[in-house]
């Protein structure tokens, strides 16, 4: 009996030891991947500082362009390292923004023809500022790195401290990263010059909307156009939170009997629908995608969205999704897009997204194109077989609206959509149109 128990105890002990060892191995593994990302980040910032420094001394296009491209590559590597560290609960936004702005600036200048348009004095100043700023960040990171190595600090402790909300506790790594962030926040907005556009989505906050402010009761009335009400439905209207850039009402509807739910956001100014979703189950298909498209077009017309034209339609199971854009004087205005979801069982509207439309819709005046159709055709790859063409307005890389010739065509087995600026002949955008993906 005693022998049996002893054996059991030894076995248990061995099992416990084994477990402990395995757990340790996993922890070390996780710690190591954090360490790799951290030291790599520090290395990339070192490199970034050096590389920007070298560009300052360069003069010829042949050496400047590749160096700037290199800066762009390093910033994106550093950005990716940041994304692998457990910093998501720590304010580190400014530093990340610094990295992507630097990357964006260097990319824009790297791809520019510097022989025709050399770096301006202003851009040169920007590079100098970036050189100094990356130096500051490098210094702070090096300090932290040094402490981490000297005191054997573990990133696992950072993760634990942040996850448990004890980031105020004394933690060298957290403090170090907070200092970096503080340093970057202290910088004035760097002037990146006129060709620079922030990667951040430009938020226009529905400034172009017309109309007066509506009440919550009016919002409910507007929502009725989109949702089916009956006596079993419970309606709730809530105000937007304080942090929103614009005023809106959220209207939600819950039908107790059918379990159906629908929600909608409506702008306070003018009472326009931002989006709407009805999450009911859709039964078997009775309508074709084409019928549904006609219903969608009629719906838009009846609800005050004028001159809309469908340009993309797709069927997902029993639901049709349609992309509409404004068409003015036969010119498609791609920024003004509205998406609609139609149930193919009864043709009712189960979704609408008009955010882009509401943010960009306005009366536009077009200057007539400088290039002729034939001239635009000559600008595309001669191997492309053009099948369709029209005039269209798109937003280009520099965040400007430009009038373009839109050319749809095929090359080999693939289809392409190409936009040629109707004024300058610049190839503004080339898009390979996606084929359906085989089900695996």
């Amino acid at each position, binding site marked *: 009996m005693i022998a049996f128990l002893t054996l059991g105890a030894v076995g248990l002990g061995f099992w416990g030891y084994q477990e402990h060892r395995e757990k340790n191995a996993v922890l070390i593994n996780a710690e190591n991947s*954090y360490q790799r990302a951290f030291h790599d980040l520090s290395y990339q910032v070192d490199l970034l500082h050096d590389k920007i420094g070298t560009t300052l001394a360069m003069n010829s296009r042949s050496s400047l362009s590749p160096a700037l491209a290199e800066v762009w590559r390093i910033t*994106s590597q550093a*950005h*990716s390292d940041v*994304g*692998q560290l*457990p*910093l*998501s*609960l720590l*304010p580190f936004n400014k530093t*990340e*923004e610094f990295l992507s702005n630097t990357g964006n600036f260097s990319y824009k200048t790297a791809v520019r023809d510097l022989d025709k348009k050399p770096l301006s004095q202003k851009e040169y100043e920007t590079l100098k500022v970036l050189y100094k700023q990356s130096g500051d960040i490098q210094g702070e990171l090096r300090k932290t790195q040094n402490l981490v190595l000297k005191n054997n600090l573990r990133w696992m402790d950072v993760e634990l401290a*942040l996850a*448990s*909300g004890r980031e105020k506790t004394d933690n060298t790594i957290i403090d170090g990263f907070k200092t970096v962030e503080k340093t970057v926040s202290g910088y004035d907005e760097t002037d990146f010059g006129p060709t620079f556009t*922030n*990667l*951040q*989505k430009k938020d226009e906050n529905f400034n172009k909307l017309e109309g007066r402010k509506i009440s919550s009761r009016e919002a409910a009335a507007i929502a009725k156009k989109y949702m089916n009400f009956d006596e079993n439905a419970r309606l709730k209207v*809530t105000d*937007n*939170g304080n*942090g*929103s*850039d614009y005023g809106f009402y*959220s209207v*939600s509807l819950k039908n107790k009997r059918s379990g159906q*739910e629908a*929600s909608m956001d409506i702008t306070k100014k003018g009472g326009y629908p931002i989006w709407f*979703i009805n*999450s009911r189950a859709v039964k078997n*298909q009775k309508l*074709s*995608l*084409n019928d549904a*498209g006609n219903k969608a077009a009629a719906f838009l017309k009846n609800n005050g969205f004028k001159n809309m034209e469908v340009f993309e*339609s*797709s*069927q*997902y199971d029993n639901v*049709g*999704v349609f992309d509409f854009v404004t068409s003015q004087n036969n010119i498609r205005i791609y920024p003004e*897009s509205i*998406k609609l*979801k139609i149930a193919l069982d009864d043709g009712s509207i189960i979704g609408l*997204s008009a*955010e*882009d439309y509401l943010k960009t819709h306005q009366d536009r005046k077009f200057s007539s194109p400088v290039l002729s159709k034939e001239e635009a055709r000559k600008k595309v790859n001669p191997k492309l077989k053009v*099948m369709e063409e029209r005039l269209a307005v798109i937003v280009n890389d520099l965040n400007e609206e430009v009038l373009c010739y839109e050319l749809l065509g*095929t090359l080999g*087995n693939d*289809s392409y959509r190409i936009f040629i600026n109707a004024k300058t002949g610049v190839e503004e955008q080339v898009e390979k*149109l*996606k*084929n*359906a*993906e*085989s089900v*695996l």
Partner: protein
Amino acid sequence: MKKKKNQMNRLLIILLCFLTLMPLSATETFAFTGQVIQRGAVGDDVIELQSRLGYLGFFRGKIDGVFGWSTYWALRNFQDQFGLPVDGLGGATTKAKLVKASKYDYTGGGTTAKKASRPKKTTAAITPNGFSQNEIQLMANAVHGESRGEPYIGQVAVAAVILNRVESSNFPNTVSGVIFEPGAFTAVADGQIWLTPNATSKKAVLDAINGWDPTGSALYYFNPATATSSWIWGRPQIKKIGKHIFCK
């Protein structure tokens, strides 16, 4: 043993005979349904359309039952050559002309090798805006792990936050980078992301990718009942959906 094998072979041959004979007995009564087929449609009518256009040599792609760009160009070329108005739609006149000009075997059994490879069902999926099926699946996993108890809108909202982060310069630039950013999502940290997602979460992801953002461009969300970080409470709050507060 050998005898048995012979018997089996004979049975197989008889079966095969039946299979090849069957198409002959089928009459060509069920043609296209009445619908106008347009780009983006999926289903049997599209399979028939692709097969017929393929028979005439206009369509050279894989017959997959999804009316994509190559089918669209094939149909337009057909309309052009047969003197029809070129609109890229499979309407009544176009279909009638197509049925007249081409052969199509409705049973799917097929006598020639080419027809035999024709699928009976749609074999491809439309994926929106350059997202692959695997990416959609990964997002569905994250959405399911994070918000499976939430109302449908709440699930679309979580998917929208992932996409807003991909767009933002403050976060990694890929879906996987955003989802697996350490500490970003609790479902990733505690492994709930590896639960099998249901159809609802996938639907929610598709809605978000197709352009629905119920959050008002939020980058963060938290559950006020369980959030431990004081920092997250300091973010500007946009709205509340289900149990989650969405902020900038």
